[in-house]
């Protein structure tokens, strides 16, 4: 078991013929992910190292039976690409694109909710998702993720930041702890999938025994997650929040990482999570060590 994606997931890459799409699409394939097709308008009939290219997502789905899509296209085109995937019946869309205007994200999100409730969007501006040993969609280097062990205990990771996701995987690997699934939800203001979506899946996943959450300043997603955890999550958790020292009013790299009007501070988020029973580390290493302690006790 894993959440959202596993070894049976068939994936197409929207933008496979571009530089980034090709590099990461092939890397995902080399990891063992079932990359069954690519989509680039006007290039049907071509292939990228044996992976067939289609003109549209609908064509790709009809020919391959894909249920997941990896969107690697520039910000200008990403909103249309995501909606095209949803219209073609894709169940999980992973969009790594950084720099999509917030107005477009809000429209896409609400369109999906209304017209395509069966499509889950991961991202935008996320590193993707990896179920170690089974499926890797996105830009995470697969080798830094420790394989889950058959009898556990394994940890599920959910994170708002790309490099901190790698850091979390690394910390767990150092400790020899297996990972069931690691989900990057992305650092933008309107993520398609939020902490709570992932927490509820991890809670239900028999292969996940503990959960690690990586958050950052800005918005209230961590506070909402804390409320959810208190009421619904029985599995032990550790967490880390980046941005304790971030100055107010500045966007810290990610479009969504901003403390404004005294809201969205790291301290507020850490307090909320701690109150919900989550072990909160002051840095990624500490969060990893806390998780090691948790796992030892399982």
């Amino acid at each position: 078991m894993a959440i959202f994606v596993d070894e049976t997931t068939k994936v197409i890459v929207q933008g496979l013929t571009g530089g980034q799409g090709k590099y990461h699409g092939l890397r995902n394939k080399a990891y063992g992910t079932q990359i069954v097709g690519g989509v680039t308008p006007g290039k049907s009939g071509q292939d990228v190292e044996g992976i067939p290219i289609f003109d549209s997502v609908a064509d790709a789905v009809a020919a391959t039976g894909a249920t997941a899509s990896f969107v690697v296209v520039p910000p200008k085109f990403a909103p249309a690409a995501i909606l095209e995937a949803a219209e073609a019946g894709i169940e999980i869309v992973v969009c790594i694109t950084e720099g999509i205007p917030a107005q477009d994200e809000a429209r896409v999100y609400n369109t999906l909710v209304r017209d395509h409730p069966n499509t889950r969007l991961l991202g935008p501006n996320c590193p993707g998702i990896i179920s170690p040993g089974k499926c890797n969609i996105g830009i995470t280097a697969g080798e830094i993720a420790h394989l889950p062990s058959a009898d556990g205990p394994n940890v599920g990771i959910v994170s708002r930041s790309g490099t901190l996701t790698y850091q979390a995987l690394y910390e767990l690997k150092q400790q020899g702890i297996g990972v069931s699934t690691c989900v990057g939800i992305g650092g933008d203001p309107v993520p398609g999938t939020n902490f709570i979506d992932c927490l509820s899946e991890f809670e239900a996943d028999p292969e996940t025994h503990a959960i690690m959450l990586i958050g950052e300043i800005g918005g209230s997603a961590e506070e909402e997650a804390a409320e959810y955890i208190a009421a619904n999550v029985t599995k032990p958790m550790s967490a880390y929040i980046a941005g304790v020292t971030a100055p107010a009013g500045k966007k810290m790299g990610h479009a969504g990482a901003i403390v404004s009007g005294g809201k969205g501070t790291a301290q507020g988020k850490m307090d909320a999570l701690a109150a919900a029973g989550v072990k909160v580390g002051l840095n990624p290493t500490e969060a990893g060590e806390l998780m090691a302690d948790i796992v030892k006790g399982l």
Partner: protein
Amino acid sequence: MDLFEYQGKQYFARYDIPVSPGDVALTVDDAVAVAERIDYPVVVKAQVQVGGRGKAGGIKLADNVDEARTHATNILGMDIKGHVVERLWIETASDIEEEYYASFTLDRAAKKHLLMLSAEGGVEIETVAEENPDAIVKLHIDPVDGLDLATARQAAVDAKIPERALDGTADILVKLYRCFTEGDCDLAEINPLILKPTGEVHALDAKVTLDWNAAFRHPEWDEYSLTEVLDEREQLAKSKGLQYIGLDGDVGIIANGAGLAMSTLDVVNQVGGSAANFLDIGGGANADVMAAALDVINHDENVKSILINIFGGITRGEEVAKGIVEAMGRVDLRAPIVIRLDGTNAEEGRQIILDAGIAADKLISKPTMLEAAREAVALAGKGN
């Protein structure tokens, strides 16, 4: 990006939102010329991106040319909470009967647009929210549906805006919403929105924050980059395309990825140091980007040590290493570097650094983020 009031008003005008006639002035003579052109009384307003301008003496009424000259002279160059006034906005003074508040933002929790409307304007909306929350009408708008005139008018009714101002307010709300959405704003705020004795409703102030991710479809935004408030270091970093924020400490920071960069700042703080900056070289950074980053940090005279924290994903260790070696050959770095290199091709990267034969007191490698931070903070301490 936050716009100055005058830019916000000019932006509003593009969407037919009524604002007072006026113009921007960089000198006293220009200010007087604008005042003479638009007729008295005029308001001379300091253009700084900070609240409390009026209390600081940055907003004055002028009835004639002498007063206009006096106020312009006094306000230009004035320091308001650390912001030096370089521009003035001169506009026709308005008769005010009532003051309201209106804004549109994105509610990240609800993932919908949020209209906030109040009949109590002219003061900080946070104050109203605290003291009299019922005076603010909050209306969520589905971005797919948008906002129509009838809904806007109902919101104005709910906010207890008087009958004679309802149509004018609703009209402005619809226009402001268009400005917010089509104009790609993170925030579009009018405070105060005024009712004149003549019955007209009118934007007396403008607060606009643009979503710079949408710059590709707004060529009209180009001019705003010219007036962006940046310190010298930020200016240089921007010219090199780096995500940089200047801070006050003495440990220069370079990391890949926004989260890791923020985390690096935190760890430096935890071990008793303080960061001189936030600098994210981004995913897939190559040798040139690393060299540029070091160049920017080297320009900051407060920097006593440099901490490079890289976890390779898209970013490759050997590229980072090449950049460091290249930069050290090209720029005479004033401060020692402590590096922590992990992830994609980290081994190769460490080898490149080793082979370059850089003096051991100039470049120190540490295996973990925490150890690297401790070393960098210790070195910064010595440099003082």
